[in-house]
């Protein structure tokens, strides 16, 4: 709780609550769930201290990442498993996605220039523009994507 103190003396009741936050999801690659994940991510980012416009763009990046997994790693199959981890620590949000589908062809990542006439190729650009770190890895379980976003320094000190 953040207490705005407009009237002296100070209002009591600002609960101490800190430490990392962790939220794990396991969903099927069903596009109908994207809207649910967006709500989860937007609120997780808000609870972690990000402002509304930042929550919005972070949510967009996560949605693009998930859509790409469904579309490209799983070729639009709706019954494949995706694991997600939302993690917040001092000043930083991290999202991890694990799938068991096709790996990323690195030559295609942000390969298409942002261009008025192209019909696709914008998802990876959006992810890269919004997030501070974007790491695609091949791990034993399959493909892992990690996205990191740092809280702007101005907001670290209230």
């Amino acid at each position, binding site marked *: *709780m*953040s*207490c*705005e*103190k*407009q*009237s002296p003396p100070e*209002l*009591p*009741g*600002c*609960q*101490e*609550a*800190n430490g*990392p*936050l962790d939220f794990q999801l396991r969903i099927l690659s069903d596009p109908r769930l994207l809207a649910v994940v967006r709500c989860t991510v937007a609120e997780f980012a*808000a*609870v*972690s*201290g*990000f402002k509304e416009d930042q929550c919005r763009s972070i949510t967009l990046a996560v949605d693009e990442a998930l859509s790409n997994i469904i579309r490209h790693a799983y070729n639009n199959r709706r019954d494949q498993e995706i694991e997600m981890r939302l993690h*917040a*620590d*001092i*000043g930083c949000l991290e999202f991890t996605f694990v799938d068991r589908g096709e790996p990323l062809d690195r030559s295609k990542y942000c390969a298409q220039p942002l261009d008025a006439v192209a019909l696709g190729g914008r998802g990876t650009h959006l992810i890269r523009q919004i997030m501070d770190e974007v790491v695609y890895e091949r791990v034993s379980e399959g493909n892992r994507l990690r996205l990191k976003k740092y*809280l702007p320094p101005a*907001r*670290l000190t*209230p």
Partner: protein
Amino acid sequence: MTHLLDDKRDATPMKISTRELNGTTIVDVTGEIDMSTSPGFRTALLESLKKTPRLAVNLTNVRYVDSSGIASLVEVLKAARISDKRLVLFGLNEPVQEVLQLTRLTKIFEIRKTEKEALEV
């Protein structure tokens, strides 16, 4: 505004501030009242009540309240009755009204629509 990952903020966004008007203390509450914010809500109301004969709680910007928030309100009502003070709630929107109805407490509290009505003696 502080944020969650500092050490002075509880996660669910809730803000409380108080004003004085014609001998009534008005507590403006914003956000969601649940298990993580109701302890702060409760303490703020009880502290304000100590210093005023009339407490009006503005719930206009409360978009969620659960049974722990309701329990806090009941506790403040009890404290008000014991000390012969007055507690008024106003600006209840649908989610808040629904919870009060489900817990059958709509008739226990003095409830007003607007701040103006809440300030009438």
